């Protein structure tokens, strides 16, 4: 056991660091999350372009699409180093993490050459259009329709929870082409131009007050058949490829963590004593420290497997469940420690970070697979437990009972 890079990895890390030091500022402590602010979008685009020009944008992609065909371990080294710098994030993850891999696998050579480099460069932003008002965890229950019309398809329906749809240029879309088939069989997958006539994007106001998600309406939107990804009826198979990538892309919850709670507890007064002397606070901090380091050490085990050329085990599947719940608890702790004043909005970045954690965590526990769905996945794919019986199994989609949509 050791924590040293081998020579090759150390050289790569040094290269990453040198470039980052020249081109970005190191993090200072409490960074503000300004996602969805328009200047932030431009800053994110500028940063992506800078990385692309220097070859850092999509390390593992093939050279012809702007990558350097880097290994998994090099990707991790880069992201470790990049995370130490105060750079914009949260804009390109879905496009690069989910849409890119799907295009890489299913699009034609011409389409890949046309769409992948601008995606990597940050010139064109992509979004993912899967969830619907009546299809969340059961996303295969979606009902938006595609009807074939010569060389085109006509799309009608509604998507929801679409992150970044309001600033996206393209999107990947799964819709139902035949409701007389079983639900997993009647779907087809496309990519679409988000500027197409008939698409209407309406931001959703979240409990945080911000709007990073949208509703997207489709009224007779025309999509050429050449933008179909996979065969007709293969929509679910293609969507699954994407969702597996999403779980990797969502990963660790950003925001207040145990170090912030610990620092805060040392500085905050609790009935005349430092808050850190409070027994129940000490117990919570011990729990969060064990969780945070459990995740960190799990990641090190994954890296160890990768660096030996082995396939990592399923350990990383626990990341989002643990980190989103911890974020919620830490936010709650910080606000509780302020007693009545915890309700007040303030410029204090530490207090803000607890309030943001508390307000944002409920969304993280849902996005990219709810806690419950992720536990099902662990139980079924890791522990090998049988699937729950499905009331809609084998039924034509049109006959499946629905509640209030």
């Amino acid at each position, binding site marked *: *056991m*050791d*924590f*040293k*890079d*081998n020579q090759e*990895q150390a050289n790569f890390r040094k290269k990453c660091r040198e470039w980052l030091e020249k081109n970005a500022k190191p993090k200072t402590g409490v960074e503000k999350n300004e996602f969805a602010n328009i200047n932030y979008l431009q800053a994110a685009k500028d940063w992506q372009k800078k990385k692309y020009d220097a070859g850092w944008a999509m390390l593992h992609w093939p050279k012809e699409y702007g990558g350097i065909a880097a290994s998994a*371990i090099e990707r991790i080294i880069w992201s470790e180093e990049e995370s130490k710098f105060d750079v914009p994030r949260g804009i390109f993850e879905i496009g690069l993490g989910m849409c890119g891999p799907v295009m890489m696998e299913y699009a034609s050579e011409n389409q890949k050459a046309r769409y992948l480099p601008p995606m990597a460069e940050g010139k064109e932003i992509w979004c993912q259009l899967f969830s619907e008002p009546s299809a969340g965890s059961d996303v295969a229950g979606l009902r938006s329709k595609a009807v074939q019309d010569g060389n085109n398809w006509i799309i009608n329906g509604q998507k929801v929870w679409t992150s970044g749809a309001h600033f996206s240029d393209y999107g990947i879309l799964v819709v139902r082409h035949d409701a007389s088939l079983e639900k997993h069989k009647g779907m087809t997958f496309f990519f679409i131009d988000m500027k197409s006539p008939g698409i209407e994007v309406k931001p959703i106001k979240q409990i945080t007050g911000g709007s990073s998600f949208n509703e997207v309406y489709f009224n007779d939107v025309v999509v050429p058949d050449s933008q179909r990804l996979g065969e007709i009826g293969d929509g679910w198979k293609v969507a699954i490829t994407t969702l597996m990538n999403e779980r990797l892309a969502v990963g660790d919850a950003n925001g207040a963590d145990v*170090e912030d709670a*610990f*620092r805060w507890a*040392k500085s905050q007064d609790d009935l005349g004593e430092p808050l*850190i002397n409070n027994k129940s606070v*000490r*117990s919570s*901090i*011990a*729990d969060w*420290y*064990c*969780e945070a*380091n*459990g*995740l*960190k*050490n*799990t990641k*090190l*085990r994954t*890296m*160890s*497997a990768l*660096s*030996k050329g082995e396939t990592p085990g399923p*350990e990383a599947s*626990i990341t989002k*469940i*643990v980190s989103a719940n911890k974020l919620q608890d830490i936010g709650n702790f910080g606000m509780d420690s302020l007693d009545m004043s915890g309700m007040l909005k303030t410029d204090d970045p530490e207090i803000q970070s607890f309030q943001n954690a508390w307000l944002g965590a409920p969304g993280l526990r849902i996005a990219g697979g709810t806690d*419950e769905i*992720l*536990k*099902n996945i*662990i*139980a*079924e794919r*890791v*522990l*090998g*437990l*049988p*699937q*729950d*019986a499905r009331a809609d199994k084998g039924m034509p989609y049109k006959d499946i009972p629905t509640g209030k949509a």
Partner: protein
Amino acid sequence: MNLDFSDDQKFLQNEARKFLEKEESIKRSREILDQSSSLDTDLWQKIVALGWTGIRIPENFDGLGLGHLELCVIAEELGRFLAPVPFSSSVYLFTEAVIKYGSEELKKDILPKLVSGEIVGTLAVAEDFMAPSSSNIKTEVLNNKISGKKIAVPDAGIATHSIVVCKSSNGIDLRLIDHKDKSLNILKQDTVDGSRGHFCIELENTPSILVGDEGNGWDLYESIINQAAVLFSFEQVGGSQATLDMAVNYAKERYAFGKPIGSFQGVKHKLADMYVAITLAKSNSYYAAWALSSESSDLPVAAATARVSATKAFQLCSKENIQTHGGNGFTWEYDCHLFYKRSKLLSLNIGSLSNWKEKLVSNLEKSNIN
């Protein structure tokens, strides 16, 4: 980057697993319980013959001269198979204390006999129904002779020697005693987990040899249990994994309402929670194993982190394993209770969960990580 055991260490672990499986270690644990004896001498002798008691003992004292990492992989398997042997008392605590703080003379005398099995050791700390601390130890040493009473001393029935935590004129001492001495009395105590005996040791002017610096015994004790905590964590991780495996197998085979109970989300989510707890505990234990084997200054924090996670994991897994087994899990016949009881034994030996949480946070304060 390599937070993993080497191929040789994994080989050793695999051999240990095969051995304990072949020896039907879990069945032996049940027999000990049924016969109200306190350990399995036959299994212990086989373990001694394999050389495990000398893993960390240097070659010039007849040991294998290997490191802590080899001990960690063995510990995981002992936990998985509930081995009813005094390994933790004699190897993680007693042997490590002698290696770390014993004089050359003491090492020369004791270490080869720990390898051969002639000596088995344990550590005597508790005295009353409360957590022991440097300020409530009453057992006292005067002119190298100890008087007082120790309780809940694991494995003292088979042990030939103990290291006793006692009060001296300069503070706390660690002192070695020989159980053959006529001045002491060892009595078996009833416990909730009968598969590893606990004993009371009554001492009256019992001759002793000082281990480590005089008066500084409590710090030495803390340092010994910091090391041992890592090994206990591996036992706890092994036990947790065994209970998760049992629960998963049962949930696949047991049918209710016309289908396996493992298809119900109420059961699935419980088992997923167990998997999450084990993964965190295992990863923290790996890191602590590194800290232990590399003598990192991070050991006190790393050991407490592993210990807290592993205690929580084994407590969760062993109780939810019973729950998954329903009424069967509550019977003497099923093995679930053996793990439930062992999880409690392992979590109280060397100090409770709340105790280790406190150690973790106070070490974080000291190390000033922020």
